[in-house]
């Protein structure tokens, strides 16, 4: 990890933080895929996000965390071109292919849909590719089943397989482990990281958990209207909080993120905030 830090990058270790580890992500090595610069989005007179900058590179996992109503979904929707930012710019690599796993996808029973057919949405994929993708996510047995008959975890895997079939540069996962039990969560995280190793795409993930994230996350970005802090997570095995919570049983695939906020949220957001790696 350390050797990736280039010499022009100063050591960010913040003495004011008492937790005694490195908060900072290694310098990403891949080319940038998508970049948001000083994004401000207003919704009905209210500022949903203010002056947010974010970049996702190839071969990098960025996890977006933040409390409810912090603007995570707003930021994601702007990056996916579902809404226009009020201020700021979004740059995308030319011809960027996005594979998207939405937070919720309810397929009404009135539409007949097998997993086999669903994997060819929107574009037709050869059956062999579809079978391989399903095998990759460990859901091969669902091929002929109706999507409405799948369990939450199975459907998440199928959604993931569909997104991967697009051969994306960037995989966008909106709370991919929501509604999946703890065991399933670590499994899904391991799966996502294995898929990334195979294909080298960038991953932008939104997580509902403020403290526990996927272990292979390169950078955690905590937002609450603006970027509060960002940095690398700590391996779970090193974390006293995690050990206290789960009694020393190591769950591979998870990591703990220590927040490094240098401000309180009592004030209104009329001043610029800095993130820890800009400090």
């Amino acid at each position: 990890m350390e050797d990736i830090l280039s010499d022009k990058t100063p050591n960010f270790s913040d003495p004011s933080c008492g937790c005694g580890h490195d908060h900072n992500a290694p310098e990403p090595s891949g080319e940038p895929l998508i970049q948001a610069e000083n994004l401000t989005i207003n919704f009905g007179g209210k500022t949903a996000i203010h002056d947010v900058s974010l970049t996702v590179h190839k071969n990098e996992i960025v996890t977006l965390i933040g409390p409810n109503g912090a603007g995570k979904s707003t930021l994601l929707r702007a990056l996916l071109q579902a809404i226009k930012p009020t201020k700021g710019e979004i740059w995308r690599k030319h011809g960027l292919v996005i594979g998207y796993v939405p937070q919720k996808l309810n397929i009404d029973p009135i539409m007949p849909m097998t997993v086999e057919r669903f994997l060819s949405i929107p574009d037709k994929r050869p059956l062999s590719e579809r079978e391989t993708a399903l095998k990759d996510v460990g859901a091969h047995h669902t091929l002929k089943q109706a999507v409405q008959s799948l369990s939450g975890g199975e459907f998440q895997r199928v959604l993931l397989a569909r997104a991967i079939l697009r051969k994306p540069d960037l995989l966008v996962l909106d709370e991919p482990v929501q509604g999946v039990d703890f065991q399933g969560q670590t499994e899904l995280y391991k799966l996502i990281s294995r898929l990334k190793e195979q294909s080298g795409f960038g991953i932008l993930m939104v997580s509902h958990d403020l403290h526990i994230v996927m272990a292979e996350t390169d950078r955690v970005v905590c937002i609450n209207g603006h970027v509060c802090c960002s940095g690398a997570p700590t391996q779970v095995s090193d974390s006293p909080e995690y050990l206290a919570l789960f009694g020393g049983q190591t769950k591979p695939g998870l990591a703990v993120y220590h927040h490094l906020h240098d401000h309180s949220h009592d004030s209104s957001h009329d001043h610029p905030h800095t993130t820890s790696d800009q400090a």
Partner: protein
Amino acid sequence: MIFEDFFLRALVAGIGVALISGPLGCFVVWRRMAYFGDTLAHSALLGVALGLLLGFNLTVGIIGTAIMIALTVTLFQHQKRIASDTLLGIMAHSSLAISLVVLGLLQGYRVDLLSYLFGDVLAVNYEDIYWIYGGGAVALSLLAYIWKDLLALTLHEELARAEGINVMLIQTLFMITVAIVIAIAMKVVGVLLITSLLIIPAAAARRFAKTPEQMAVIASLIGSLSIIIGLFGSLEWDTPSGPSIVVAEVILFLSGLIFGGLLMSKSRRLS
């Protein structure tokens, strides 16, 4: 068995409409647009009234009005002040009322209102058949062209947008397709029953299909079968043709329910 010419024309026209309304009706059902279809159908009568008033081709008038109403509804759907079913209700009934008033004012014409409201497929001429097959071919090609994108955005609009589908364009093309089909279906069942031609075969096809494409094809088949049964019934018992077709659809739908239910309970017993 030899049929009169008018009866053959009715069969050809009816089946032409059923073939396109099958796949299109599936989308109306999937996208929960039955009420929207009703609104467009009612506005078709406004097209007739305007066509007579201003002296242009009635089918062109119907397609034009339906497209206008469809685009207006799409535009207004983004506002939040009026709920969309209220908006559709206002548009459906105001266009129906306005067209009836206009037709009433046009005293020089003897407009057969009933044939517009309930269809008169036994009176279709060759020109109507050209319209049905020409318009149907255009509508079917449009639908085939937008099929995969429309399916994706029906499942999840944001996902479709995120993965690069031009949602606005696809929605607009879909509206135009619906408008064309309503204009040609009006000749067969009339404005008050058009929606049934779209949604009943699709609903009946659901339990026999495993994929969206299967459902579309089966809906076309069920629609065509309803046309045949309905027209023969109409000939046999001297009943109005449009409503007879709809009654045939309902009978097929119900027997599908019963038959499908029996089939399912049987396979459950076997397993």
